[in-house]
């Protein structure tokens, strides 16, 4: 069965979506990621969508679900690399991806995840919404 690979790096999981996902593939990714978080006790998930040419309401819902399920399993999710045209379309479509943290690229996303945890490995309190807004609307 067709699957999107999930890489493990320490306590983080990395996913790079490089194909035009059909809906069932997206749902498989959601299930696989949730299982892997629990199996390897991951603290963070980084999803690189720089190769995605569109994010429609279905993919938006899957990304939101992944973030929520990860949260319940005590892991943080960061979505990185959204193309500008995709961001413009998303906002016009009416999706705000509430609850999903974003970063411009993989490097910044990793820095965000790393800074989320202090040396004991416990999560520092996060303020999710302002950062997400800033990334979507280009505010500083």
């Amino acid at each position, binding site marked *: 069965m067709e699957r999107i690979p999930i890489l493990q790096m320490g306590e983080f999981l990395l996913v790079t979506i490089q194909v035009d*996902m059909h809906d069932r593939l997206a749902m498989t990714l959601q299930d696989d990621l949730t299982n892997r978080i629990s199996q390897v006790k991951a603290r963070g998930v980084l999803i690189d969508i720089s190769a995605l040419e*569109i*994010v*429609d*309401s279905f993919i938006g819902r899957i990304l939101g679900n992944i973030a929520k399920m990860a949260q319940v399993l005590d892991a943080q999710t960061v979505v990185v690399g959204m193309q500008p*045209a995709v961001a*413009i*379309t998303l906002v016009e*479509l*009416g999706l705000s991806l509430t609850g999903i943290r974003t970063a411009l690229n993989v490097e910044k996303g990793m820095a965000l995840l790393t800074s989320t945890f202090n040396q004991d490995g416990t999560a520092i309190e996060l303020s999710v919404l302002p950062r997400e807004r800033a990334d979507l609307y280009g505010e500083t």
Partner: protein
Amino acid sequence: MERPEVMSIQSSADVVLVRQAVRQCAVDLKFSLVDQTKLVTAASELARNTLDYGGGGTVTIETVDTGDRRGVRLTFADQGPGIPNLELALKDGYTTGGGLGMGLSGTKRLVNEFDIVSKVGEGTVVTIIKWK
């Protein structure tokens, strides 16, 4: 590619093929990247509706040329149960479960022209045009 092109929508893999064909059509007409993305996203939403709510159907992809402007017209047709309350279905936030409630209303914002005809028990036809 020959147009008008009629494609069948019977599986989620077909939705991907529709996205690719619509993208190709927008590229042929030299749409900007943002307009390509908007049109392909709209096509993806409507193709999924055709599949999930209409029980499958077809899309017709064609270019329109009025002399002073050119665009892409997409017609999604199914013989499904139809939509009993169109006004409600076009409202922001309305959903029957599948997506995020942005399907029809959001799609309308992504294109220039949007027309929907639905008869309960007969099916639904959605036509959109994006001008260059």
